[in-house]
């Protein structure tokens, strides 16, 4: 598996309901693209305002399979959001085997402008699914605890 994808030009993600928390689902031509879109959905949990790509952050993670890698990826984004006090609006993901390298572009949280609604605590294994349909369209989904 060797997938690379640039940040998609239009949003291809959605939120789906969970009793207490929120479900994220990203779509794409590749798993990497679906991961990027799911990260967009993660940002949209916090803010509906445009996030400017002022600062670039690199992350890497690793997991034995694509689904666990997806959770690792979201958790890596959540960690950078938390420790840097930032939001991210653009993502590029490269997946090679069990490793992922991601680039995040974003800016520090501006409470007045972003009006952040809630804080993601962690991605969960609940409703976790990363798969391609029979047409080869990928989707990546799980519940995030907020």
């Amino acid at each position, binding site marked *: 598996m060797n997938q690379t994808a640039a940040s998609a030009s239009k949003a291809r993600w959605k939120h789906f309901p969970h009793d*207490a928390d929120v479900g994220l689902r990203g779509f794409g031509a590749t798993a990497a693209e679906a991961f990027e879109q799911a990260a967009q959905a993660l940002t949209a949990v916090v803010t509906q305002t445009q996030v400017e790509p002022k600062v670039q952050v690199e992350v890497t993670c690793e997991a034995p399979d694509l689904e666990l890698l997806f959770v690792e990826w979201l958790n890596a984004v959540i960690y950078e959001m938390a420790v840097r006090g930032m939001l991210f609006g653009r993502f590029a993901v490269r997946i090679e085997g069990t490793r992922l390298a991601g680039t995040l572009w974003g800016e520090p949280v501006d409470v007045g402008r972003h009006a952040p609604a809630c804080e993601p605590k962690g991605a969960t*294994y609940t409703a976790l699914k990363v798969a391609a349909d029979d047409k080869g369209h990928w989707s990546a989904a799980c519940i995030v605890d907020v």
Partner: protein
Amino acid sequence: MDPARFTRVDETTWRLEPSGAMRVPAIIYADEALIRAMDDKVGEQAINVATLPGIVQASYAMPDAHWGYGFPIGGVAAFDPDRGGVVSAGGVGFDISCGVRTMLTGLKVADILPMQRSLADSLFRQIPAGVGSKGSITLDAIDMDAMLAGGARWAIERGWGDTRDLERVEEQGQMAGARPEHVSERAKERQRREMGTLGSGNHYLEVQAVAELFDTEVAEVFGLALDDVVVTIHCGSRGLGHQIGTEFLKEMVVVAEASGITLPDRELACAPINSEVGQRYLGAMRAAINCALANREILGHYARRIFAHFFPNHELRLLFDVSHNTCKVEPHVVAGKRRDLFVHRKGATRAFGPGHTSLPEALRPVGQPVLIGGRMGPGSYILVGEPTGEQKAFSSACHGAGRAMSRHAALKQWSGRKIVDDLAAQGILIRSPSTRGVAEEAPGAYKDVGAVVAAAEHAGLARRVARLRPLICIKG
């Protein structure tokens, strides 16, 4: 959920006998309307928990149970380490030791009303709440470890609290067995600037009025009378707990498999209590409990400082501080024998009955205050632990109203601005950095907390003492 799959034992007890991989029954405490309103997933998750090794007596769900991840939120399960019992990171949850503290102010509603607006603004300005808010405390590595070992005691030693609080905080403010060295650098980094912050989502600080009394004798022991004003804080271990939960969940998926434990859901990831990972998690989780206890002590201190400015002659006394996302070792009597069990309460409040030795002398004759968070409009409740709770669910009760509707659905139905205006018209002042956050937490998105606590009382888990209505709500 269709209650037909359960056997109705009495008005509020629903039981499913073990079948398939279940080792014990699943028992849900709720009235019929509450159980019908529960998602099917609550039943599935309670059944899944019943399959875990070493589970004792039953897998329980409280009246406010809703679909969680792995365990239902409102789930209670106890495990015996000597019978292959497990500890589960998912069974504690991401917000380790999330809980509630209620402080008595000695003030009446009439004292608050003339300055309600400026008090609300002052609390909102000075208590960091929500994403992007900044606390004034930064911990270096030495302070971090001292905090993780010391809990509320550490906060008090640093001048952010009152020594008299300690007897009214679970574990006397300091969870034993905490191992800061088992908390990762990433978890510590996430907490470095988070002490004394409220968080977001359903976390809040409220100024509340005692609106109704159900048990005047216990209310008197608790120091509650009609129209009294109290301050309640709901929050947890912030980023540190979230990171510990995240990391151990990942590790426990692998360990469970290696230990031959079949997981019906990966989120139930667990490790034998008597294993290296199990012990390491317990050390880290207990450190996170201390983090939550310290955090609530500091937030209580901030509330005291602000109240002292408005009401210099009144001091805030702690009624109680109790967590609802924990795993604790407790002695319980099972089939006539006393055993030390690892009790997981995931969105469930410990509710010790009268006479429990861990309670301070003043509270021991009546039982432990059980603090139930409602939301903004409908109000909150204070219950007291019942002697029957021990046999019913290892002395556990509900923890809140429980969501009736997803955030997603709530957003479609309500406007945050309108909720703030409508509540203001009812004399409830909401202060939040996000109107969308207010809409997601709309009072209508939650179950009827009155029905939840009535069911808890009927089931013999805990008894109603007082209902509180909000006057001010600072929401993260």
